[in-house]
């Protein structure tokens, strides 16, 4: 932002610093401990009057000089060079804060060099006592340089009180200073032994060689005590959230943690092995192998320390992409590019969309993500985003639930530009429809069943209780709702005082042609036992019913139901049809005479938009259905974020029902009582990725309600002037209402999901009324006060008291007709003439019985042979009358 960014693609993501730093630390820590090693052996050589040993020490000090002075010293300078090139803002901050610490370290460097030169060049010429003193001075200077750099490095991870008081000493003697010092001192001593193996391995004198091998083995092994104590202390001293990120959350660190855990004992054992009298040629080769193991061990530690600091470069102070924590609010408001100095694209326009996106990637992301490189390559991470909307949504949610990422910093336009760059440039995809083709409305023919007002004695009303039953045909991997529509019917005997008939009749239902064998279209029945714990024969629903059969009587509802009818939106011709039509027939039980026939749409859709973010595309007809890719990615994301092993289970042929762990009232599952219920979990999680959206943009991302789509499930007349959010609230509000209830119930997971959600329809989160999903829902009467015309279009935040209060479960004030019998299913209440497959598809019964689209009872003579004067069903029911 403040500084230009070196455009690195393959070698980006921190690769250069990782390379330079890891080779440096190996040699530099050796440089520290090696001093002690040399003087210890020198003293022993004097004590034992061992000329051979003394000669070895002299040779080793030459090796020491050549390795540490040249390679060690210059790679140290190299680190400095590299950090200034990769992160000048942090380098500047560190230098301006700790300049005198570094200046003091420099003094000790001078001392080290002078001491080492003198030590080597006067070996054998200087008086023994003085020579040892020179060695000691070397070691003290070297250890002090470690002491000083340790303060600065540990500060970056745990700045401690410095954040408040900006005091040099608070920053220097920070929470991980001492544990890190102990750990690094341990490493320094171990490395003497490790490098000692190399020089010893080239000794010709076998006795001497073995003696030194044993000494080196001791030098390698004993300091493990310091490393273990220091290491354990180090882990204890790292605060949250860093320690959880390191131990559990970061996918990048997990492998290195494993490497570290293995490399430590392997190094110990390998070093101990060298104490055994092994063949000379083996010792020569194996000594280098041990150096390699040490490199891996030490490299893994440094890598973990660095990666554990993400998303910061200086914890709680500066992000890894050089933005100061304190500047983020300004950046979010004014824009990242407009506050950056080194960009030519201060504002995002239509013309510079991708170029601005490229700059945003460079400045915000490339600090940690290489492109086609070794470290944190961005390409595999974004490969599944085949559309800008999905990528933009991912950026929307960045860092809100995974603490090792920062939030996206910038305006909506900038976020969109970045998403465009990633999808079009990195993924080379240029689909303007974003994988969701525009589906034109069709006009599938519907034959309205006949009704003769003069002669017919019965009126049969039938409906699906939900306006849409979504199913996920992701069965081999997981399922969130099985094929299970609930069909209802009420039979009315017409008359002066119409009667509801529940006895002596049989109501049957039959799916339209082409939909008879759902088991051939979806794989649900292959996995039903694993998914639901129920052994279902192919084509049989959860309650034992097939797509055609006989309805059961529900006495207290005064209606007939066919629960969990397993219809799927896939007719035999391979197309997608979310509105299969069922024929409902009422027959006299005794005589078998048909009393009345009607038809109703039984809506079901697999146009669930998971693929918009989880990749994979649509499976059926390019408009609906789950590909394996989408299904797997959903599980992979869940595994990564929640530490589950769902991918493995699916691959072993054991897919799960989401609601088996996450309770859900609609399926009646209790799940794991510590986890959020399913709607709270799924909406709460995804809300973080879909904030601040206009209208129903967020809903449409997942639900089959895209107006250009093949389902368009919200299709009543309400949809002409309202959208989902009028009743259900925005995504944030919707989720907060569910999460608040869970939080009040003591569920720990709610807080994290709520943290970054703002209420939008109401003033604050405190104003949102908590609710249980599927049970506390917005009610028609929120707007239609006293059953009149709607007085407002804001139905959010007032819920039904319980399931009995739901529109779809209620009856009129006489406890006779169910509301839906006359008014139609939720989301498709009459008039509903916007069905994607034909204007009259949702209006079959009004057309059949009344010749219009209005609710049944327009006019009352559909059932009442004598026009009633008073409003029996509900107030205002005589308001709108259209005469025949």
């Amino acid at each position, binding site marked *: 932002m403040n500084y230009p960014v070196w455009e*690195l693609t393959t070698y980006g993501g921190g690769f250069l610093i990782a390379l330079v730093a890891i080779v440096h630390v190996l040699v530099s820590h050796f440089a520290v401990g090696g001093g002690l090693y040399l003087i210890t052996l020198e003293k022993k050589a004097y004590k034992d009057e061992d000329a051979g040993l003394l000669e070895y020490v002299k040779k080793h000090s030459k090796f020491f000089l050549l390795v540490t002075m040249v390679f060690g010293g210059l790679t140290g300078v190299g680190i400095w060079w590299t950090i200034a090139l990769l992160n000048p803002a942090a*380098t500047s901050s560190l230098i301006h804060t700790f300049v005198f610490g570094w*200046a003091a370290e420099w003094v000790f460097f001078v*001392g080290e060099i002078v001491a080492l030169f003198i030590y080597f060049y006067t070996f054998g010429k200087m008086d023994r006592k003085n020579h040892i003193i020179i060695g000691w001075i070397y070691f003290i200077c070297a250890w002090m340089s470690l002491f000083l750099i340790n303060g600065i490095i540990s500060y970056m991870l745990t700045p401690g009180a410095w954040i408040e008081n900006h005091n040099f000493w608070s920053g220097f003697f920070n929470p991980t200073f001492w544990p890190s010092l102990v750990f690094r001192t341990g490493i320094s001593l171990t490395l003497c032994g490790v490098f000692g193996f190399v020089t010893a391995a080239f000794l010709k004198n076998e006795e001497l060689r073995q003696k030194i091998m044993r000494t080196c083995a001791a030098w390698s092994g004993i300091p493990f005590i310091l490393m273990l104590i220091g290491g354990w202390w180090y882990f204890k001293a790292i605060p949250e959230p860093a320690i959880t990120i390191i131990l559990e959350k970061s996918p990048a660190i997990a492998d290195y943690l494993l490497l570290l855990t293995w490399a430590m004992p392997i190094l110990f054992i390998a070093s101990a092995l060298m104490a055994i009298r092994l063949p000379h040629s083996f010792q020569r080769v194996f000594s280098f192998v041990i150096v390699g193991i040490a490199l891996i061990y030490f490299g893994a530690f440094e890598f973990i320390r660095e990666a554990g600091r993400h998303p910061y470069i200086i914890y709680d102070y500066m992000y890894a992409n050089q933005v100061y924590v304190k500047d983020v609010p300004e950046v979010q408001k004014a824009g990242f590019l407009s506050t950056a100095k080194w960009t030519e694209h201060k504002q995002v326009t239509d013309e510079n969309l991708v170029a601005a996106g490229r700059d945003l990637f460079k400045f915000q992301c490339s600090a940690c993500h290489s492109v086609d490189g070794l470290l944190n390559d961005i390409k595999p991470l974004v490969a599944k985003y085949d559309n800008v909307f999905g990528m933009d949504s991912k950026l929307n949610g960045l860092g809100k639930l995974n603490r090792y990422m920062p939030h996206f910093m910038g305006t909506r336009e900038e976020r969109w530009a970045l998403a465009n760059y990633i999808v079009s440039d990195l993924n080379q995809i240029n689909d303007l429809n974003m994988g969701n083709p525009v589906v034109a409305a069709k006009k599938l023919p519907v034959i309205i069943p006949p009704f003769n007002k003069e002669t017919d004695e019965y009126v049969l009303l039938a409906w699906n209780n939900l306006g849409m039953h979504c199913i996920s045909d992701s069965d081999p991997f997981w399922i969130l709702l099985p094929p299970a529509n609930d069909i209802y019917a009420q039979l009315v005997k017409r008359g002066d005082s119409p009667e509801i008939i529940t006895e002596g009749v049989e109501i049957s239902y039959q799916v339209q042609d082409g939909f008879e064998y759902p088991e051939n279209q979806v794989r649900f029945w292959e996995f039903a036992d694993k998914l639901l714990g129920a052994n279902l024969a192919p084509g049989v629903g959860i309650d034992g019913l097939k797509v055609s059969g006989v309805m059961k009587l529900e006495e207290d509802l005064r209606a007939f139901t066919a629960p969990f009818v397993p219809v799927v939106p896939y007719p035999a011709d391979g197309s997608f049809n979310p509105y299969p039509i069922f024929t409902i027939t009422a027959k006299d039980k005794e005589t078998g005479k048909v009393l009345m026939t009607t038809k109703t749409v039984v809506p079901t859709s697999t146009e669930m938009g998971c693929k918009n973010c989880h990749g994979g595309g649509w499976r059926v007809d390019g408009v609906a259905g789950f590909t394996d890719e989408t299904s797997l990615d959903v599980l992979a994301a869940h595994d990564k974020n929640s530490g589950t092993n769902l991918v493995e289970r699916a691959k072993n042929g054991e897919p799960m029902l989401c609601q088996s762990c996450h309770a859900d009232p609609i399926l009646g599952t209790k799940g794991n009582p510590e986890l959020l219920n399913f709607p709270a979990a799924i909406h709460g999680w995804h809300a973080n990725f879909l904030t601040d959206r206009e209208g129903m943009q967020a809903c449409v991302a997942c639900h089959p309600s895209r107006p250009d789509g093949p389902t368009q499930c919200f299709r009543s007349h309400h949809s002409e002037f309202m959208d989902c959010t009028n009743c259900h609230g925005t995504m944030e509000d919707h989720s907060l209402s569910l999460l608040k209830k869970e939080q009040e119930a003591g569920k720990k997971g709610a807080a994290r999901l709520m943290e970054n959600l703002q209420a939008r329809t109401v003033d604050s989160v405190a104003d949102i009324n908590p609710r249980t999903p599927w049970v506390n829902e917005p009610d028609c009467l929120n707007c239609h006060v006293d059953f009149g015309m709607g007085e407002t279009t804001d139905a959010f935040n007032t819920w039904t008291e319980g399931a009995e209060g739901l529109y779809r479960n209620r009856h009129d004030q006489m406890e006779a007709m169910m509301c839906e019998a006359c008014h139609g299913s939720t989301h498709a209440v009459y008039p509903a003439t916007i069905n994607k497959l034909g204007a009259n598809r949702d209006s079959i019964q009004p057309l059949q019985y009344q010749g219009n689209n209005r609710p049944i009872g327009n006019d009352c003579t559909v059932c009442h042979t004598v026009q009633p004067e008073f409003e029996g069903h509900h107030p205002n029911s005589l308001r709108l009358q259209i005469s025949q």
Partner: protein
Amino acid sequence: MNPAALIPTPDTISVPWGWFYVLLMLTFLLHIMVMNAMLGGGIIALFSALRGDQQNTLLSKEIGYKWPYTIAFTVNMGVAPLLFVQVLYGQFIYSSSILMAVWWFSIFGLLILAYYGAYIYDFKFEALGNPRIFLLEFSVFILLFIGFLFCNNMTLMLQPEKWQAYFSHGGGTLLNLSDASLYPRYLHFVVGSVAVAGLFFALVGHFRFTKSSVNREFLINQGMTYFTYATAVQIFIGFWFLLVLPKNVMMVFMGGSSLATISLLLGILLGFTALYVGYKKQVILASTITLITLIVMIFMRDLIRIAYLKPYFQLSDLVVVPEYSPLIFFLVVFAIGLALIGYMLKLAFGCRKEVSK
């Protein structure tokens, strides 16, 4: 685009800028002195090796003994001024470094190669035989190249007007080749290093610090000859350097600022004096004059920097958020360090006397 808009905001400093300035000048002087011995020494060694006669070969061997020390201390003495220049001018030098990132990044790796080359040249001088000259060329060429890169960075950091090139070349491959003052500046350092190195080796001879069997008189003579000829060339290069500076910068030294003008006059005077004294082969006097000349030159170099940056920045712009205890800590450590080093050198020279007895 207004160049000033690209200049990053500097961080605050913990003590008034004068402290850092003095430390910068002091440590940079040390760095330049040793760097001259390193670079110039390598060049002189190369010339001597090319001449090939016995004494010249011994001269190149003598230099070979000292060469690794000079590299070690050049790097070490470079750390401090780089630290202080980043405190005072970080917003400029980080930016220019990134613009030439690929080149800048290559430096330490190349230096490792040159350094090992110098050690091999030193330790295996006899074993290599005549082909040792290729090794010498290798290391000297790398050092010359590194110096050139440094000059590029030090000039690019002063010219934010040039920084817009980043927008078309963001991969770190830029240099400052279009700057006319780059070349005389670079040559002034290179030729100057030959002069100082010649003087350095004359001193080595004068104080009998030789390790090889090179003739002492020959060493002093050759050293002073290199010193004199190089100083003569330096005077021409110096004028060239002055004349290609941007008008506003040059005018500072030609009356614009009394301090700068006096420094320039002093520098020219010292240059001619050094020439004369070198011709007379007066080693100690020449060393004193040269030390003063170096101080004046370093100061002038910084006046040039201040003049270039005047439209954008002056050191008094830096905000001070006082915290003196770290400075005191450093000064105490520095004092201890000096004492330790003094003690070690005493031991070292003491044992040398023992050996030679």
